[in-house]
């Protein structure tokens, strides 16, 4: 394919001949409204919002079904085209309930955005003239449907027919009685179902998990990587630190990365944010009694002195590469063995051929790269220092120091030190394809829990 020049709104752009005009407009941030088009789903041409004027064409054309041609002259602005968009937008809104105050999509709704961009007209219709549909349909898989808010862009139905190929969703009825539905008695049921919530440009599909929890304009989105498996899907962590309260995660959303996950994530990964906030270990425990940091450090020093003959350090394969490197150096300085048994991370039942990997450790790639041993030693050790490894209890040891993110049953450790989870720390991961991806720190607690690197500094007598 050859590169050609085309003129849009008086500016010249170079694009591949035969590529979609709308992709070019999106790429260069030239605003055109659209509901049905989506890079992952392609053009469907049903919403008729992305109308542009093309010189030589009598009627306005939809950009999502227009191929780039040499010397094409396109106008996205101007009185004519804007009034066309306004008229079509008005039709989109005619049977819309306009219940924005109670709608979870408010703030990230395309209908709202486009109304502010192109609408701003006085309503032509009485509230009583609207066509009504069902407002609370539990589709299954945490997805709630409000048929009245739907603009029938068919993104969700195309997702289930073209992407997951599970075909649960369809449009039934004709004309203004058309609505999204499942087959009678059937549910939306596939491991990627909740992506339809992100795909939905309006508030028709909302997440049962997220709805009514938080207004989206209060949320801060921090880019991160899902720790659900070794695939390393790119996500946004949407969190909010309300006044006087702790920073809280409200949802994970997929973040586009064509090298890794495309546009989507699995539902298991999406809901894994909950684990970061449930059953967490916040207190330091010395012989199962809450203690202060000073006491704990002193006790740790004593344990090291008394039981230094055979020390084993276990490191979780979900820790960041930088953290594993520091642990590796620390183990070496102690003359200890470092090990990361991988057996319990294998989960064939979880895997599929798309985004779900049987390797559930997010940073298995780094364990391999750093050459960390993966076989659990059979010999009993005198001291075990575990950095959040799930197999800690399988090791026979005289004394146990456990740095852990989540609370465990009491009575098995001499010393328990709370550890920050990945969203509270920063570092990089190596996914199963060897791609290195960086995660900035997302969550700032009022009383932050130390990270691996902070603990090792403290354990070595340094300061945080």
């Amino acid at each position, binding site marked *: 394919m050859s590169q050609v020049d085309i003129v849009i709104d008086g500016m010249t752009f170079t694009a591949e001949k035969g590529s979609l005009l709308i992709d070019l407009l999106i790429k260069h941030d030239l605003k055109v409204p659209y509901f049905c088009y989506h890079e992952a789903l392609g053009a469907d041409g049903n919403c008729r919002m992305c109308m542009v004027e093309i010189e030589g064409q009598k009627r306005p054309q939809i950009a999502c079904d227009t191929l780039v041609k040499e010397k094409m002259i396109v106008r996205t602005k101007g009185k004519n085209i804007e009034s066309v968009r306004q008229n079509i937008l008005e039709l989109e809104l005619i049977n819309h309930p306009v219940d924005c105050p109670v709608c979870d999509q408010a703030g990230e709704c395309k209908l709202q955005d486009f109304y502010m961009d192109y609408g701003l007209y006085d309503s032509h219709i009485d509230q009583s003239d609207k066509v009504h549909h069902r407002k609370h349909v539990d589709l299954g898989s945490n997805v709630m449907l409000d048929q009245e808010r739907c603009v029938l862009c068919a993104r969700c139905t195309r997702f289930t027919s073209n992407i997951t190929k599970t075909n649960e969703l369809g449009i039934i009825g004709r004309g*203004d009685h058309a609505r999204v539905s499942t087959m009678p008695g059937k549910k939306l049921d596939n491991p990627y179902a909740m992506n339809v919530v992100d795909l939905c440009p309006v508030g028709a599909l909302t997440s049962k998990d997220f709805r009514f929890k938080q207004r989206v304009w209060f949320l801060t989105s921090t880019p991160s990587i899902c720790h659900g498996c070794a695939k390393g899907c790119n996500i946004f962590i949407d969190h909010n630190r309300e006044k006087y309260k702790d920073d809280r995660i409200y949802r994970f959303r997929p973040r586009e990365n064509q090298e890794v996950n495309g546009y989507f994530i699995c539902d298991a990964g999406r809901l894994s944010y909950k684990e970061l906030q449930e059953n967490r270990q916040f207190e330091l425990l010395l012989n199962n009694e809450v203690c202060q940091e000073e006491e704990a450090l002193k006790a740790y020093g004593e344990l090291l002195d008394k039981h230094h003959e055979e020390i084993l350090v276990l490191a979780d394969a979900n820790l960041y590469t930088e953290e594993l490197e520091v642990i590796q150096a620390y183990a070496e300085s102690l003359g200890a063995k470092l090990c990361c048994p991988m057996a319990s991370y294998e989960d064939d039942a979880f895997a599929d051929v798309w985004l779900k990997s049987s390797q559930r450790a997010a940073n298995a790639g780094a364990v391999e790269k750093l050459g960390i041993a993966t076989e659990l030693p059979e010999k009993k050790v005198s001291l075990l220092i575990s950095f959040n490894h799930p197999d800690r209890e399988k090791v026979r040891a005289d004394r146990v120091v456990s740095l852990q993110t989540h609370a465990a049953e009491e009575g098995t450790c001499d010393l328990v030190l709370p550890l920050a989870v990945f969203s509270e720390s920063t570092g990089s991961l190596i996914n199963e394809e060897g791609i290195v991806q960086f995660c900035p720190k997302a969550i700032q607690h009022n009383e932050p829990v130390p990270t691996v690197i902070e603990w090792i500094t403290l354990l070595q007598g340094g300061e945080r």
Partner: protein
Amino acid sequence: MKECKIVSRKFDIDKSHTLAVAKEHGAYNAVLSAFELSSEAIIDIIRESGLRGKGGGGAPAGTKWALMPQDELQPSYLVVNCDESEPGTFKDRQIISKDPHLLIEGIIITCYAIKAHDAYIYIRGEYYQFQKILQQAIDEAYAEGILGEQVMGQDYRLDITIHRGAGAYICGEKSALLESMEGKRGHPRLKPKQKEPEWYFGNPTLVNNVETIASVPYILKYGAEGYRSFGTDQSPGTMLFAMSGHVEKPGVYEAEYGTSMMDYINHYGGGIHGGKRLKAVIPGGASTAVLTAEEAAGANLDYEAMRVMGSALGTGGMIVMDEDTDMVEALKNLLEFYHHESCGQCTPCREGTGWSDTLLGKVLEGRGTSEDIDKLLELADTMDGKTICVFAPAVAIVIRSFIRKFRNEFEAKVTQ
């Protein structure tokens, strides 16, 4: 009036739907002459005859046939469109119930010309009785060796299958029809960027109306010139015009293109019912611009003349309305139909058909204002030319023609 019976020749013969009677009157004679010609030669004859698609669009059939690949790298298909749902149109059902063998004969010739070995007839579900007659005819043809592995003893296989639709108007649109046949919702497809055939499961497919295909045997028998001896230069041949509404003898009568509309109505229809005066005619199925009595007086039944009048010949199904007709009620009746039948794919049509129906309902209930009438016209502009198929533009044409030509009747409803 010049008598011309090309498609309707056997309509008045008793039991003409049976193979024996049909054969007695010359059925399948054209097939043998077609087999002596090459595919390309047949397409040339059709092109020269100027045969136009009779489903509403009036596109030259030969040009469409020529788009079909002759290389046989993939299977080709013929789909005969018998989803006759346009209000006021009831001609195809006459063909399939009175002379089904003429259609089968046309299908054989067409398939031979486009190198297809499978033909489908898509019949609207409501045509159950007619479908039964057609299926009997197909069964008879199979039994006689007219269809099947060796068509009439030739080394050529052809199978015909009837596919019953579920009763959606939009499935008469050829791409929606194919979607429906593929087992999907009947939604029109995005238009291709260049001239190409239709696609059925990814294979090149020709979609033609029943009457178009039924005209083919005559052209093969009498040649392009024979066909061109009827009609006008640009609209050659004849059409099964249908007439309904306020006429003495509603029905389907074949006439040549270019016939004067009033002559047709008076000659075949016996004039306006009860000796009343004519008020308006919708010329070619509901989706064409309505003509006033004055316009109808000067109208000729061919594509070009109708276009000049700002309307269209469409399917040739005339709806005749006398002086007592309430044009607001008439438009409401049509809008209810469009509201019910819009497939709901494109926003302007999905919401526009419903809203226009609601607005006019308000006017009829006496709650409307003159602003509502203007709103209807604005809405027509929004629906026109902004959708995938021509459903919404047709609704726009209907709304505009009714309101512009009979505005006083609409105004009377809002001021009362």
